[in-house]
């Protein structure tokens, strides 16, 4: 299963009403090329996508929130699994794109998930109510669709092949930096929720 093919399927399952938080790595340009709208926060920190998405989900319990995390990101901050498990917001789905590699690093050294580590079992042990591992595109679509609609916190490990999609059209290339990404996401939520997050004048 290639990451880009998986993301194409996921893009068909989420809507402009949903919010997505991505990890760093190859997922960012690929997801942007498929979903260039403002509903995604492109986090720039390893280990941040899932806890950041948890914060979003807890504040907006009526809205579906997806964390697009990675094996490297999850291993960097395993405690986040426990906080997700304890809080278990029913509107949060964590998808771990597990290529068993630090793909952005020269030589693509393996992560611990290439050995004996099983993130799905760790998530279940952390108390996350719905967990699964997908090893094919069909499996992934079935599990992701279920988790996005079952009203439970979920974590889906997607075992993917290493590799980066190289044919993103130039007009779909992500050029924005972290500040622009922040404003786009924040203004998007302000419009969706009809709220003001950052007012011109901050009152008590």
């Amino acid at each position, binding site marked *: 299963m290639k990451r880009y093919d998986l993301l194409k399927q996921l893009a068909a399952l989420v809507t402009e009403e949903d919010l997505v938080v991505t990890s760093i790595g190859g997922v960012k340009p690929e997801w942007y090329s498929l979903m260039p709208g403002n509903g995604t926060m492109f986090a720039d920190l390893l280990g941040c996508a899932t806890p950041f998405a948890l*914060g979003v989900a*807890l504040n907006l319990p009526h809205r579906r929130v997806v964390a697009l995390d990675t094996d490297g990101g999850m291993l960097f*901050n395993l405690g986040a699994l426990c906080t997700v498990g304890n809080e278990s917001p029913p509107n949060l789905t964590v998808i771990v794109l597990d290529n068993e590699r630090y793909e952005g690093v020269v030589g693509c050294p393996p992560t611990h998930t290439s050995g004996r580590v099983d993130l799905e079992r760790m998530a279940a042990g952390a108390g996350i109510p719905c967990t699964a591992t997908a090893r094919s595109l069909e499996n992934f679509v079935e599990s992701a669709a279920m988790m996005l609609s079952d009203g439970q916190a979920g974590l889906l490990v997607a075992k993917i092949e290493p590799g980066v999609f190289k044919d993103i059209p130039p007009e779909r290339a992500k050029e924005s930096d*972290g500040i622009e*990404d*922040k404003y786009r996401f924040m203004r998007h939520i*302000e419009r969706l929720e009809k709220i003001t*997050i950052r007012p011109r004048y901050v009152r008590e």
Partner: protein
Amino acid sequence: MEPRLASLVIEGLKRAHVRFVVGLPDSMLAGVYVAAKKDHDIKYIQVTNEAEGASVAAGAWMAGGRSVLVMENSGLRAACEALARLGLVNGVPVTMLMGYRGDLGERFHWGVNHGMTMEPLLKALRIPYWIIDREKQIIPAVTRAVIHGVSSLYHTAVVFRTPLVNEGK
């Protein structure tokens, strides 16, 4: 921190419309965690480390739920990478409330180093901070730290020193 003072922290948070207290329990601000858990207008989220806590607080903030991260000042060291990325790369603010372990007169040998590194790290990350030790400073410092985070889109901190916090035995 005794309950009466912790209630002032909660009052300061409410004046700034804070809805989420994210924390990793510590002795110095123990009363704040208890008060936040009991309060019906505030959601308390316990995390496993301060870097995770910074990310949770930032996510809640970005979705419109003002938040603070409560911790001992040693947690600043654990949170530095998350704070650097969230603040310098994205400009998403995290307001921190922390106890001043390692202040002059620290009684525990293991706590001294927390004081040695706290202010240099806050300065390195260009985080505006207030160190307070009087009861009447609590509400305005907490409220204004949150407000400054919203207006500056950058982190802020309030550091509580004795006699406002428990030193422990």
